[in-house]
């Protein structure tokens, strides 16, 4: 029954994505005569709806997980440390440096990677609660990281960041199970807010 519910929400996310795409195509056909704000308004509306549906789905997932962990294997989540463990993966070195600085001072354990293959190797060795990864990288991209994490680490939240944000990419990320999607440029505060939500959903205390 839970599976069906998830599917339903996923389809309605898809529905909204299609509406966004239609809105864009409509604007294009009109020859860009309407102002950008109209398109923006429509897409924002659609995105808000998508995010709402998505957070509903996440809460369902969390409930299920909590129920699962409460019922069957309470001990599995317990080994997580007191501190939230976050992996930051971005081929821009400055992003890693600054996020390390921004998160560490809030008592978060941060590991920074620039090379996605090294990051994947490290994922095999250690457990991370949250992974913040860039979407577009050489060799391995963020979607592949996301796929690896969803298949291997059930209790890890993935937050995707990208400078090349498009509706299609956001859709793919959210449908494939990313916790959230952040477009560059963002402030450390934006990221901390999202990580905070992820931490709460995992049963940690609020950070900061």
């Amino acid at each position, binding site marked *: 029954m839970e599976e069906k519910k998830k599917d339903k929400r996923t389809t309605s996310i898809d529905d909204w994505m299609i509406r966004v795409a239609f809105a864009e*195509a409509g604007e*294009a*056909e009109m020859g*860009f005569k309407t*102002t*950008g*704000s109209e*398109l*923006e308004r429509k*897409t*924002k509306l659609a*995105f*808000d709806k998508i*995010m709402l549906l998505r957070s509903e789905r996440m809460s369902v997932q969390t409930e299920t997980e909590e129920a699962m962990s409460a019922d069957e294997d309470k001990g599995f989540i317990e080994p997580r440390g007191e501190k939230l463990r976050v992996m930051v993966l971005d081929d*821009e070195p*400055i*992003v890693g440096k*600054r*996020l390390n*600085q*921004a998160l560490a*001072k809030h008592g978060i354990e941060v590991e920074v990677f620039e090379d996605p293959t090294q990051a994947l190797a490290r994922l095999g060795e250690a457990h991370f609660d949250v992974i913040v990864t860039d979407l*577009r990288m050489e060799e391995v991209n963020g979607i592949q990281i996301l796929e690896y994490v969803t298949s291997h680490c059930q209790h890890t939240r993935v937050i995707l960041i990208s*400078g*090349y*944000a498009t509706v299609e990419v*956001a859709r793919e990320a959210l449908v494939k199970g990313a916790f*959230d*999607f*952040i*477009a*560059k*440029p*963002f*402030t*450390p*505060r*934006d990221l901390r807010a*999202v990580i905070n939500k992820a931490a709460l959903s995992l049963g940690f205390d609020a950070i900061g």
Partner: protein
Amino acid sequence: MASRKTEFDGSAMPIAGLGKVDHREEAELKHAHTSFAERIHEAQQAMKARHRISIPRRLGFGFLLWFLFSLGLAVVSITIVSRIRTKVVFMEAAVNYTFEIQQARRFEKNYFLYQTNLTDALDHVHNASAILEAQHDSITAVVGQSGFDTMASHLNRYQELLFRLSNINPIRDAGGLASSGLSAIEAELREHGAEMVAVAENLVAQERASVNAMLLISQRIPIGFLAILILLFLYFARFISTQIIAPLNRMVGYSRRIAQGDFTPITPQKKYYDEFSELSVTMNQMMNQLAFRQELLVRAHKLKAVGTLTAGVAHELNNPINNIILTASMLREDFSELTQEECLELVGDLVGESERAQKIVRNLLDFARESEAELESHSVQDIVEETLRLASNQIKLAEVKVCVEIGENIPAIHGDRGQLQQVFLNLVLNALDAMPDGGQLNLKVMNSEDREFVAVTFEDTGIGIPKQHLRDIFDPFFTTKKAAKGTGLGLSVSLGIVQGHGGDIRVESEGGKGTVFTVLLPVAKVPAEMIGNPLN
């Protein structure tokens, strides 16, 4: 959420920026166009300065000459025929005169033999005298006044002698006196008679000769006429071929040349100005317009390319901006806790990332701004590298791997850097569009086999072009892309630019396997300074 808001903020901005560029570039475009317009203007002036002779006027003049010639011929023929007629009438009279004289002489002889018919002889002499009187003018015309006088005096004398003879009655005055007078008269009569016959026969013979000569002339006139007619036909044929067919062929050549994009103005080929010159002037005006439209088209397409690149640049800019925002935020948050060195490091990052952002924008602005058509020697390699730098964001976005291979000893080519960059960029962007799921783009710069051209090859591993579309792809407005994505002008404009450089674009494609575009550019043979404006 902040992240979502920022995602669409950038969309309106680049378009406003482009509008500004557009205005300034239009002025530059007009300036670039004026030099061409001046060349056209010079050619027009040279053409119009020629003396004006229209084809109908020349044809009219020819026909007038033809008419006058025919008229003259008719007048000559009529005159000759009427003169022959007068001569024939006159000759009849001369024959009659001769006959009368001869009759008179016969009767005179009879008189001396048988003393009869003297009155008949007198009658005939009288007739002859009447004919001589009547034909005075025509005879004078033939033998002159003195000749006529001699004839008249002979006749008068003869008549007088005959009168004297009739006064002497041979029966009455039979005797010595009569016989001696008779013999004297007879001798004189014979002398004058013979003279008269000779003159009359001479006259007839002369007239006959003259009539024969005239007949000969009138016989020869048609032959001469025919000969002149043939000459006229030859002249007319030559006129048509040199004045109508040859210029027509020239015009066909010009149109063909124009269709291939060569807008060199038509210069005067003849010493005078006629309808074909008029046509040339109009064609020059047409070329002026075509060249202007072509430039507008190139410009419009360039702006479209700038628009495409802007999307990539906007995305790529997010990286340095993100770094700046993160660094600046951390600097503000932790300012009091950071050491001076740490602060300096952060500020250094801020400067570095700002410069990176500037660099990303600069290439695009350079491409968008450059507009003055300047023909110079360039290394194809440089232009290719610049193009790849310009499209680097697009290439990254499309997840396409680019391999560049430069042959050895590539000579310089002669052309307009901005325009060639536009051509290469268009081919690169097309290749990226053909590989929506990523792929490989191989770029090769090689010498052609005859070393006359530099060949730049763009080989992609994309979807390819179906065979039935291959011959249409260079047509304006032909596109297989979706409505808002392609204008269908890219390849048409590119081909126009390359042909304007004296080169060509070739294409080979296999559906599903990829496409190879080859741009052939002629090698610069003369140092750049030597090649000026061909008209100057």
